């Protein structure tokens, strides 16, 4: 079915890379404590890992929730192309007749 899609896996990989970056920073800080130096900035490797994980998470966050649906009623994806077989509850005498008809009507 593809429920766990490729984009979700990319997000998981991004999270794992971020966790590894956090772990590397912890190790780095404990080394600094031994050498009794100040912590200014994480090492270059950690910065690169954080940037990579940000990129992967951005990709996953924009892809996983789904695609946008158009909101205008006369767009291509919102066309009503089929009616139910039971028309007893469908009302056609509504206020829609006050809308001016679109000049380009696709059939």
């Amino acid at each position: 079915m593809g429920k766990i899609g490729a984009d979700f896996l990319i997000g998981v990989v991004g999270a794992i890379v971020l966790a590894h970056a956090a772990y590397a920073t912890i190790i780095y800080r404990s080394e600094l404590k031994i050498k009794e130096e100040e912590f200014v900035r994480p090492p270059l490797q950690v910065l690169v890992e954080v940037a990579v994980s940000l990129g992967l998470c951005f990709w996953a966050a924009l892809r996983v929730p789904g695609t946008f649906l158009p909101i205008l009623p006369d767009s291509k994806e919102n066309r009503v192309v089929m009616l139910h077989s039971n028309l007893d509850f469908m009302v056609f005498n509504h206020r829609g007749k006050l809308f001016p008809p679109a000049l380009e009507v696709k059939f």
Partner: protein
Amino acid sequence: MAPSARPSKAFVKEEKKSDDIMETPAYSAENVQHNMRIIYYSRTFLSIVGGVVAGVLGLSAISGFLCYFIIMLLVSGGIAAKTKFDIFSYFDSWQRITVDGITAGFMSFVLFWTFAYDIVHIF
């Protein structure tokens, strides 16, 4: 000034109530909600990721908040790119993609920022 001859009714454009309908376009409400839910999910997830990043990098005070706003700006850009820059066929105003959801994500950001900072730098 002499009054001009009044044209016949067939050629006068009268203000009909249906003219107002042109100014408020009808939107498919469930699609509007669907799109807003997608933005909300994206922003929340990236707020959490941004919080962990700010904690790992050891950012504090102003630079941390700056990190959050930079990430939210990038998210807005990403959402605009996702719509292929045709924003008004998916959202009803600019505010949806620029401002909506920023306050909601801010709390998650601060929570995970504090969390990650404590784990990485203090304990």
